[in-house]
């Protein structure tokens, strides 16, 4: 317990320290606030402009989450297919790798042309950008499942889908949660990207407007808000992860008296 508290204290102070360092370095190195504003300035801006920012935050958060939810669903489904079928592996991987190597900025305009500007392309972008890491990790998790564990169910006459549900997927959970952390950050990037290209709402829009007018500290307020949202979602996944994959990260829990 006290160990736990110490960890928390240390980590909080280190994170606070990070921002302090940023502040101090900016002052010492005399960094122009047009290049990199100090955290304190950003905070002030964020506070002052919060009423204006709020609807944009909601917009970005909701498009991101919707896109992310779709992305995770598709990613898991594709991951299962890729992880279990050799042909799917050989087909899907090159296509997915190829597609992922393309900057999504180039894809968003196409979405805009097909679906108009605004929320739809943002959701789509948030979705497509987060699929790949999930596919890779689910597929790897399934492919590295110990055959011995699958054998247990095979002898019971389990069908392929039963083996998948009872062995493959639970076994792949640590991989899955690892990929979620990457995927959610990508989803935010995707949604914001699409907003910068074509939308009149969202943090991406705010940042674009702000940066075209050189309101640098507003740009950074947007960035910090994005980071915060990412961290909050990460925290939620972490909780889930601890509950679900505790078996994989177990240690000895000896009671010392």
């Amino acid at each position, binding site marked *: 317990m006290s160990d736990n508290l110490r960890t928390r204290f240390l980590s909080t102070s280190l994170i606070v320290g990070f921002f302090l360092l940023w502040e101090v370095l900016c002052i010492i190195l005399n960094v122009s606030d047009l290049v990199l504003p100090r955290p304190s300035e950003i905070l002030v801006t964020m506070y002052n402009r919060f009423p204006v920012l709020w609807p944009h935050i909601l917009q970005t958060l909701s498009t991101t989450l919707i896109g992310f939810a779709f992305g995770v669903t598709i990613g898991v489904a594709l991951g299962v297919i890729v992880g279990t079928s050799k042909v799917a592996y050989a087909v899907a991987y090159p296509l997915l790798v190829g597609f992922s190597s393309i900057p999504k900025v180039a894809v968003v305009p196409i979405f805009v042309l097909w679906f108009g500007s605004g929320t739809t392309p943002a959701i789509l972008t948030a979705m497509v950008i987060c699929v790949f890491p999930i596919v890779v990790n689910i597929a790897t998790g399934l492919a590295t499942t110990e055959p011995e564990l699958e054998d247990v169910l095979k002898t019971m*006459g389990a069908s392929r889908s039963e083996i998948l549900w009872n062995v493959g997927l639970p076994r792949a959970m640590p991989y899955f949660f690892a990929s979620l952390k990457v995927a959610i950050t990508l989803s935010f990037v995707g949604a914001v990207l699409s907003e910068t290209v074509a939308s009149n709402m969202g943090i991406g829009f705010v940042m674009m407007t702000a940066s075209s007018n050189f309101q640098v500290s507003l740009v950074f307020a947007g960035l910090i808000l994005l980071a915060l949202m990412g961290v909050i979602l990460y925290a939620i996944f972490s909780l889930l992860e601890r509950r679900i994959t505790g078996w994989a990260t177990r240690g000895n829990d000896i009671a010392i008296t």
Partner: protein
Amino acid sequence: MNMTSNIPAPTLPIATPETTPASVRARSAIELQAASVVFGTGETAVTALSPTTLKMASGEFLALVGPSGCGKSTILKLVSNLIRPSAGVVLVGGREAAARKLRIGMAFQNPTMLPWLTIEQNVMMPLKIVEPFKRSYRQDKKGAFRDRVHALLKQVGLGDFANHFPWQLSGGMLQRSNLCRALIHEPDLLLLDEPFGALDQFTREELWQIMQDLYLDRAPTVLLVTHDLREAGFLASRICVMSARPGRVISDEPVTLPQPRDIATIYSPEFVEMTQNLREMIAQARSS
């Protein structure tokens, strides 16, 4: 641990086909026809099993003994259809690869409990997967199933550990839960790979009793791999001895002692003689 050998085989608190119909039973006859297994190719190829022929009637209790690495586990995997023979044929109930359709209970040599499930959930797994239990499982009879699992766990002395995870158990405890998982769904065909190896003599003898009661009660076909000749003699109706790798069956003898047997039997002269004979046979096979 409150383990007495008088506890009957686990009573089934829910309606399931208690007695398997004869037609299904006949299906659990086993036949290996010159079945051999070779792992890998080229230089690294390992012959795990020489062409082996072996027949087992339904309801037989066969013990398989033989030196380490001779292919005993391989035979079990062949019968349970986990692997296919490189050559030859493996028939279960007269058909190839028919094992799929059969209720099989398999205790692996290395207890492979699923690490994300508690012992209870692990032992429950066959009830979730195997018909006809599967159906009732879906109909949310989980409470009844849980009682059944707990009863069995209690019988092997793991009553307090139902909610523990596999890595919280000792080696012998794991092996016992492994056995429970093989027995819980009352299989027609039991494949047991050294299921008592990591247990002390007393626990082992108690489990022998449970095993024997269960066999006499339900008469499944049992294929037991063991290194303990007394275990083989106590439980089996027939003992097969295998040669060293690549293995073949070099001796195939029935155990004539009447069943049920009790622990005292193993100190009887006939029993000692039988095990001595087996011992010598194995010794000969080794030196050849």
